[in-house]
């Protein structure tokens, strides 16, 4: 019966990967602290009182990958940079074209961002958030227009990438990135 097979799939087939070592936990913490510190310090200190933004919510998600799952294909420089940049453009475009129907602009932005990241081999989960923020974000974000894709999206991601390159290669047991292209 087809129904039985359908529901049987929901039981899962395998187990969770093992827990990482304590040193891995520590280096993930250090990397994430420094990476977010860099973009947040620029945002709240240097850019305070300006129209510019350097930190967006999706960078928190990028930090998980960049400092906590550094071997993941999703965490590699190509994915990080391409994912944020393309998704930002798509998000801004969707807000400008479909902004009168916010639910439609939101859904189209995220779905199209995922499709575009797949096609360009730049899948980076936080990119979906970057696209969504372009639509549902504050007036400050909306006022940036397409600049949003350069600052904060691309530049912020580049700063976090620099921190990842510097920090992730300090411990003997870590190496970043796996690939560039």
């Amino acid at each position: 019966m087809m129904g039985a097979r359908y529901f049987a799939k929901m039981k899962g087939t395998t187990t969770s990967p093992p827990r990482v070592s304590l040193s891995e936990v520590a280096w993930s913490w250090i990397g994430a602290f420094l990476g977010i510190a860099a973009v947040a310090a620029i945002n709240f200190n240097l850019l305070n009182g300006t129209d510019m933004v350097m930190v967006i919510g999706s960078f928190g998600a990028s930090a998980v990958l960049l400092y906590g799952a550094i071997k993941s294909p999703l965490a590699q420089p190509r994915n990080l940079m391409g994912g944020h940049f393309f998704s930002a453009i798509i998000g801004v475009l969707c807000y400008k074209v479909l902004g009168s129907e916010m639910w439609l602009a939101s859904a189209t932005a995220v779905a199209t961002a995922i499709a575009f990241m797949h096609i360009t081999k730049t899948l980076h989960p936080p990119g979906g958030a970057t696209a969504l923020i372009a639509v549902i974000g504050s007036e400050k974000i909306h006022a940036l227009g397409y600049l949003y894709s350069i600052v904060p999206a691309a530049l912020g991601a580049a700063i976090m990438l620099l921190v990842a390159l510097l920090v992730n290669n300090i411990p003997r047991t870590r190496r970043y990135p796996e690939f560039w292209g």
Partner: protein
Amino acid sequence: MEKSPEKDLFSRTDISDEDVIAAMRKINGFLDITPGDFKEVYRFAFNHAINRVLSAKARDIMTKRVHTVRPDTPLKDVAATLSETGVAGVPVVDEGGMVEGIISEKDFLAKMGGEGRSFMGIIAECLQGKGCLAIPVRKQAARDIMSSPAITVGPDEALADIAGLFSTRKINRVPVVDEGGKLLGIVSRADVVKAFTDMGSAA
């Protein structure tokens, strides 16, 4: 995948979730893959590697420097060649390099009439004082006892088929010849084993 002919190979080389988790523990850092997905990747990769080796051609695995004898080479010289080179069989080729047959220890044993036509059969007869069994073949030449026509393969024969030939025809080596029947090399059972060990060391 379930219906593939390699399924048997899969089940014999299968790895468990525990095997994968043990391997993942050895690698520092978070691996963004479930043990289940890793097993799937492993199975396909393993199967791919096996097929790569099995599809190697005779020309890739053959020994090119082949010891040979002529049809008119006296058997005492053939025996000396086998003894000196440490191989158990050699192709018999004419002046033009055409393969006329193949001659091996088995052909000698067969003609020397040892019981069961085996080495131990010869030993047994010697020990029973029945005289030297090599006497009858002393005056003969390679063409008199060689296996002819020899079983041969072309240079593009796949390793899998050569291995099958060894098994079904109960032979230990097969000359590789071009379209005209001229000797190019020889593939022995040892060459087949080496193709697999080379796969292992290349990994």
